[in-house]
């Protein structure tokens, strides 16, 4: 142990590692490219290293907590426990990759200082809420995330972007208010906001005031469901895809929607506890809402010709696998849900990276224009294909692992309808992903490519191609090596074993 460093500070350092660069960048001049990129990369790498350190500690059985009392009974606390690390590791590693991608993607475009500043702040908020040790801290970062993301969504400044940004704010601010009200009510009623594995609430107290707790639950759920894009609160997400590709990638895979989904996990597992939630009959409501969202999102994705829009509806659908999984009683389903939190992130970020490469390099934005792009961009489309097949849930890609545990969990929890929902979703996923893959590889070129032809090293700028390839390999590796200790599945199994769920 290094004496000057208190290990309990690790969670705080993880948050600061992107906060400091974020603030620093804000004061840079637009033309200070080198310093800006250096700060960004240094922050991303530092965060990654810190998270790996923490990961090892937690694997050895340690846990990290940093807290300061704000008000009596309310503390600002950052906790590095198993569940938090699942999410933090995801966001730290994907942030590193996305930073490289964003630097390449935005090269030569205006307002990069603003962009990268908020980019870092966005990740700060995400890691903060991932490690939030209680609902108070969670709410702070949840709101911060809303504000940090808005400038990214409207980055292009086009009327369309402004409109999407306004819609985003209307949805998320309303949701934030509802969440705050729910949190205040919870504190007033239960006197605690702490996250406790297995549930923080006393079942007897809940039984004493069932209606009040029911209202609290739905207030909190309502506040979280908007970011988790549960139908009918998903409207902002497909519109927000006007943002630049790296933002969409972060939005859909790491930050905003994941914050919502993770919030639902916390709500069901660390506040109410899944047994209590099932007893109250609210878990089944979440499960059914998620089931409906899974199907609805996929059906809507079917007839979207705009690639990014199709991917956005796919997010709506896939994200609800997480909510579905954690709302069921059986450990197998929790494993499926939590592991999908990671798997969906890795696969979806790959898809958005590829969509960005297509529009940036070839100017291809619509599915119907994608004929033959596989021959021009084999690495990119190879990555896309792996991620798309993973979304369908084909073995050995990561998506299959999630589906397997969810199916087992659904059937075992005496909710056999989960299986048809999963199968229908797989079929629909196949119906809207496989034609893209087929068109890209087997059809002839059918549109004008702008083909700026930059980058002699690879098929396009390496900063765009390599991130996509990396995450695609991760998506493959998470499935192919799922049995290993360090895979997301291995980590989740460890959590279950230790009783963290």
């Amino acid at each position, binding site marked *: 142990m290094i004496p000057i460093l208190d290990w309990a500070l690790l969670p705080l350092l993880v948050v600061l590692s992107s906060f400091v660069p974020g603030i620093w960048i804000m004061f840079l001049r637009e033309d200070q490219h080198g310093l800006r990129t250096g700060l960004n990369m240094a922050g991303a790498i530092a965060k990654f290293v810190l998270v790996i350190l923490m990961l090892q500690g937690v694997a050895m059985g340690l846990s990290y907590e940093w807290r300061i009392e704000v008000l009596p009974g309310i503390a600002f606390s950052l906790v590095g426990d198993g569940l938090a690390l699942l999410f933090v590791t995801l966001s730290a590693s994907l942030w590193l990759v996305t930073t490289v991608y964003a630097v390449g993607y935005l090269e030569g475009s205006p307002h990069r200082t603003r962009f990268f500043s908020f980019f870092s702040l966005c990740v700060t908020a995400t890691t903060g809420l991932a490690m939030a040790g209680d609902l108070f801290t969670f709410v702070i970062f949840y709101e911060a995330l809303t504000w940090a993301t808005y400038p990214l969504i409207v980055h292009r400044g086009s009327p369309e972007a402004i409109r999407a940004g306004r819609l985003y704010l209307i949805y998320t601010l309303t949701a934030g208010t509802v969440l705050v009200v729910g949190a205040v009510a919870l504190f*007033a009623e239960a006197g605690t906001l702490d996250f406790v594995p297995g549930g923080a609430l006393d079942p007897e107290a809940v039984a004493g005031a069932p209606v009040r707790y029911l209202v609290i639950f739905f207030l909190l759920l309502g506040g979280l469901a908007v970011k988790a894009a549960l139908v009918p609160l998903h409207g902002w997400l497909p519109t927000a895809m006007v943002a630049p590709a790296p933002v969409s990638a972060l939005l859909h895979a790491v930050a905003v929607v994941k914050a919502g989904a993770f919030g639902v996990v916390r709500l069901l597992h660390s506040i109410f506890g899944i047994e209590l939630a099932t007893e109250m009959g609210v878990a089944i409501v979440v499960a059914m809402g998620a089931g409906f969202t899974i199907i609805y999102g996929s059906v809507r994705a079917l007839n979207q010709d705009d690639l990014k829009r199709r991917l956005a509806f796919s997010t709506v659908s896939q994200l609800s696998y997480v909510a579905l999984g954690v709302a069921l009683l059986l450990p197998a389903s929790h494993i499926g849900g939590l592991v999908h939190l990671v798997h969906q992130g890795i696969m979806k970020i790959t898809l958005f990276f590829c969509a960005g490469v297509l529009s940036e390099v070839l100017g291809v934005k619509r599915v119907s224009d994608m004929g033959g792009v596989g021959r021009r961009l084999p690495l990119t489309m*190879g990555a896309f294909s792996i991620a798309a097949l993973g979304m369908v849930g084909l*073995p050995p890609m990561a998506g299959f692992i999630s589906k397997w545990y969810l199916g*087992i969990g659904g059937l075992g929890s005496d909710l056999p309808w989960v299986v048809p929902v999963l199968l229908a979703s797989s079929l629909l996923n196949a119906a809207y992903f496989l034609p893209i893959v087929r068109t890209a590889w087997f059809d002839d070129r059918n549109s004008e490519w702008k083909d700026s032809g930059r980058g002699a090293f690879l098929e396009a700028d390496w900063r765009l191609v390599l991130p996509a390839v990396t995450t695609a390999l991760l998506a493959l590796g998470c499935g192919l090596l799922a049995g290993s200790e360090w895979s997301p599945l291995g980590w989740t199994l460890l959590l279950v074993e230790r009783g963290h769920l």
Partner: protein
Amino acid sequence: MSTLEFVLLLTPGLPGLLAVTWPLRRLRRALPRLAALAPLPALALALTPGAEGTALVLPAVFTGVHLALDAVGRAFLLLTAALWTAAAWYAERYHAQDARREAFFGFFLLTMAGNLGLVVAADILAFYLCFATMTFAAYGLVVHTRTGEALRAGRVYIVMAIIGEMGLLSGLFILGVASGGVPLFGLELEATWLLLGGGTEAVGGGMGGVAVLLLVLGFGVKAGLTPLHLWLPLAHPVAPTAASALLSGVMIKAGVLGWLRYLPTESAYPLLGTALMVIGVGAAFYGVVAGLAQGDAKTVLAYSSISQMGYVALGVGAILLDPGVAVLALAGVVFYVLHHGMAKGALFLSVGVAERLGTSQPKWSFLFIAALPALALAGAPFTGGARAKAVVKAVIEELGGTWYAVLDPLLLLAAAGTTLLMARFLVLLERRMGGHTDEGGALGLAVPWLAVSAVGLAASLWLPLAYVPPEALVLPPLRVGLAEAAGPVLLAGALAWLVWSAPERLGALTRFRVPAGDLVVLFEWAWSRTRRLPQEAFLSFGEDMVEKVRNVQRESHEYAAWLAERDLYLMRGPLLGALLLAFTLLVGALLL
């Protein structure tokens, strides 16, 4: 890791490794020549005496992959590895001038990895992983020519494959829940079936029947079980010849292996067993009738496969019906698969040879050799086919009673039908022959083709003794049933010759044709019709709903915007400050 274990690992590993080197340009160019080496570990493993019992666990891979070789697996591995080796050699020559050669071999190797892997997979998910890899990689083989016909076949293939996968996966979910994990084949799986059959007490109790049905159907798509065979007569003919041979020779057998591996052999499911047997007999005839009405040699072969898989379904149905006959029926099915795989492989390969046969090359000796596997399929005496049919007969004899009384004459009739079908194939093959100016083309292809023919013919005679599980040494000796075997072949042969020598005797019947893919055409027609009516109605309904929801959304947005504006207006300066202060005080008061 012992040598055998290492070879076991290389069985799927080597083709898989070669397939993933595809992005490296230099290696990719060498793939066509390396492909024939890829199945060699598998072949070596299958030929090593005493290799049964070799097992390997890879806990970190996927959900913990278990590989093992047992007697049934060894028989399947021999067939699979042998045919893949020959087909790889054949394909290297066949695609020598093909511009898309490299893409072909990429898919080829990936399909091979899946196919060889599933034979040695020992747990249900490892099998499923390999099975899916094979299925989806083979799409690239089916659509290789990129013609409209090939793309249509590919579409039907992939849609049916996905439906099959879904059935399979739901069956696996039930097995997984009942066993609380990923059961291994054999004892663990049987125990799971006992739980599932056991009614109420266990998780998933009473779902045994559903699981059996789902698995039968899920693998049935791959095995070409009527009426799930629709993709087969479309995909097998359009694929390049080497791939056709593999599709019909070994890949549909993966479905059969799935049945043998997953389905219970100790719990009886009489209803499903009976249904499968009836479907099997029906398919044996249906394949013949629909096949006779085809105008293309490869399509005839595809329908013959459907017919032959009917016999296999019969055997599998018998296992479900009465676990008492399981040992004999298992041996029968394994033997049938070996015999049919090699013979059908040789027949498909002969089509490619025929196409490239030069004008001066010996037509009649070629036809004579090509006819040998056809005779074997028809069950002529002294061939593996005769023996295979004798085993099937032994199984139904064991079942006894009505089954024997009804099935015995029916199977004789079906054997005559197969002979006719083979005669039809030879006629069409003869029409495809010759006219090629490049004399070397056929020679290159002839070696692997002759090898498959020879090995197939020879192997069917001694294979059952060496490769079928020891319990199954009860196989009838070769001479038994000689007269019975000769009967239908001679009868049908005479009939075929009569028709061939003077086709006008059949009159209008000669013009009777069934479109390849039979029912698929109906579905496509129905789809193109129904698309208009309900879909349009559904879409407009959907659009209406979306519009309504949008209106509500828009109104609420406007309301929110209105509210926000008022809000901002109200909340300027002192008012905002006062409100904030009040809010803080309120929160403070609440907290205290």
